């Protein structure tokens, strides 16, 4: 690996030795954009609250060909054992950004292929505007390409992304494509987990065609030293539904960025989420929801529980174009700060060019409610347990927005396993 050259511009230098030889029009164009912009610093508005300094001073190597199977198995078991129903679901497992067939149990009712065999960059990604998408475009090796045929209810599919790094920091940049064709239905559960120092930089291109429904739950349990900066594009057709929820728990620095585009009438988008962070964790939930057609609905509820020195970032933009009359938009970001050193940065934005719309947004920040705590304690419940009950309840109101019962139970099980008995004041 190259040593970091101080002359090179910022964190981009960390990938320098892998950026040299892009092939194909998409990669060359993205490399050009990346060379012009570099990786964003905090002067870039969209990155004002999330510094990429955390990428550190080390080089990120390409993942090795061989990964210790027992480590992968242990990580996978950790994911699947969170709830008994999970092991029975079809799954596609990626290890360090590459499909790992030995650990997958591929679904039947969908068309599957892989980026490594036939690269697909999709139509929505904008490497010229989003440097992390450009980085992904240049470095992507593999990814899931999943298509649910028209009219098919494909049930559940899990996409499990595991990061396994040893002494040397790794980066991987998977490029996933999910298409739910006309009147089809898919319940997609994405799980990110891992160990060691790695940088996970996925891009997912989603199309939900007319009359189709995609229920998409992302469980963010990256390893404690991991940086994960993901960008997701969702194109939502006529009378179709993209219903998403992200649960952010792991990683050192995690950003979940969603661009949802309501492209035709009567579409519906939900970009909900919850995160519970502690220590030095930074969790960033950023979204841009564009209403580009009339009579569409968007809903966004994000709840943050922040302890220790953790910092939550919420950037939520709802853009209503002039044509998008009768838009119904709702956005709410709420934060519970459990420690005086925890922080939430919230930037809700409404940008409305249509005149007949119903849009509302709001944000709240607070500590645990003293009256509620006293009420619980007056019933004999010890303080730490009372705190835990109120924290769980705060998050659970967001988890309850997950419609799919299996995914909802999965989220609850993971939360319960991670945080049982951790209501003590910090």
């Amino acid at each position, binding site marked *: 690996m190259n040593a970091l050259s101080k002359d090179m511009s910022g964190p981009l230098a960390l990938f320098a030795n892998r950026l040299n030889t892009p092939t194909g029009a998409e990669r060359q164009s993205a490399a050009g954009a990346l060379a012009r912009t570099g990786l964003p610093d905090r002067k870039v508005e969209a990155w004002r609250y999330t510094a990429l300094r955390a990428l550190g001073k080390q080089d990120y190597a390409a993942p090795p060909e061989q990964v210790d199977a027992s480590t992968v198995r242990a990580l996978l078991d950790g994911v699947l054992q969170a709830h008994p129903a999970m092991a029975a679901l079809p799954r596609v497992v990626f290890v360090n950004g590459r499909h790992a067939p030995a650990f997958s149990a591929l679904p039947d009712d969908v068309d599957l292929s892989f980026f490594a065999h036939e690269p697909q960059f999709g139509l929505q990604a904008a490497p010229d505007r989003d440097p992390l998408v450009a980085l992904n475009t240049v470095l992507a090796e593999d990814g899931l390409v999943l298509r649910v045929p028209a009219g098919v209810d494909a049930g559940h599919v899990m996409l499990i992304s595991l990061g396994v790094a040893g002494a040397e920091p790794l980066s991987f940049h998977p490029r996933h494509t999910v298409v739910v064709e006309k009147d089809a239905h898919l319940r997609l559960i994405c799980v990110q987990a891992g160990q060691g120092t790695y940088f996970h930089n996925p891009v997912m291109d989603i199309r939900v065609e007319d009359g189709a429904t995609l229920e998409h739950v992302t469980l963010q349990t990256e390893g404690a030293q991991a940086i994960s900066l993901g960008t997701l594009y969702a194109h939502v057709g006529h009378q179709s539904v993209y219903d998403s929820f992200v649960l952010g728990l792991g990683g050192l620095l995690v950003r979940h960025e969603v661009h949802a585009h309501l492209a035709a009438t009567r579409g519906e988008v939900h970009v909900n989420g919850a995160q519970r962070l502690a220590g030095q964790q930074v969790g960033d939930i950023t979204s841009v929801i564009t209403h580009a057609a009339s009579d569409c609905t968007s809903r966004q509820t994000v709840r943050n529980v922040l302890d220790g020195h953790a910092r939550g970032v919420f950037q939520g933009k709802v853009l209503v174009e002039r044509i998008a009359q009768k838009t119904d938009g709702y956005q709410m970001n709420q934060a519970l700060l459990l420690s005086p050193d925890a922080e939430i940065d919230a930037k809700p934005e409404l940008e409305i060019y249509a005149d007949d719309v119903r849009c509302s947004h709001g944000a709240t920040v607070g500590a645990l409610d*003293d009256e*509620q705590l006293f009420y*619980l304690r007056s*019933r*004999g419940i010890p303080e730490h*347990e009372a705190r835990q009950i109120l924290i769980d*309840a705060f998050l659970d109101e967001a988890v309850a927005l997950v419609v799919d019962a299996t995914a909802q139970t999965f989220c609850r099980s993971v939360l319960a396993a991670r945080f049982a008995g951790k209501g003590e004041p910090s």
Partner: protein
Amino acid sequence: MSQFLEISGLCAQIDADGQEKQILRGVDLSIPPGEVHVIMGPNGSGKSTLSYVLAGREDYEVTAGTATFHGQNLLAMEPEERAAAGLFLAFQSPIELPGVNNANFLRTAVNAVRRARGLEELDAVAFLKMAREAAKALSMAPDMLKRNVNVGFSGGEKKRNEVLQMTLLQPTFAILDETDSGLDVDALRIVAEGVNRLRAPTFSALVITHHQKLLDYLVPDRIHVMARGRIILSGGPELARQIDQEGYTKFLAEVA
């Protein structure tokens, strides 16, 4: 000496916008086991503050006096320790707990108290059976156990939920802070019956009320009148009827 509940010279203040506001100014009150006592008094006389101080709410600072319960220094105990020791406060305005399932809340409370009292915890099945029976006795709709604690409950439902908690936690001393307010006659009777079911030689209650009506169902042993942070007068049940007819003015004038 070490009676059931002994309050002596109790003074408490609250910090209101940086100003210390004295609310209790020397409360003396003694409640023997097996008795129901009533506190009446004009608004702002300190009745609710007294109930909060006894239950252990931290906003109030006790500046003088003592309160002992079964001979223990009540004021040194955490709220949950007081509950475990057998004290229960039915809130005047029960708190809503969004996202907290009522049955889970009740079971957590019951088992926390049982644990502290050295009793075996109840499993979900045994608990639900007990809770359903208690709710039925209070004419509560069965779905109230499934809903979030007090969220979307009517005023009457909240008060019944308080009495349900009291029934399940089996206190030896209950403070009912205007549990009758906002209740219609039927609800009032049901709530009173809930309290009456607990009456025993080892159970006492302190009932804060403005109305004689509750006392028709809940025959008290003693009536206390509170004004300006003190008990200014005590008497038998007839005192409540007298206040109901004549108001407080006469009594306040007598001690002024």
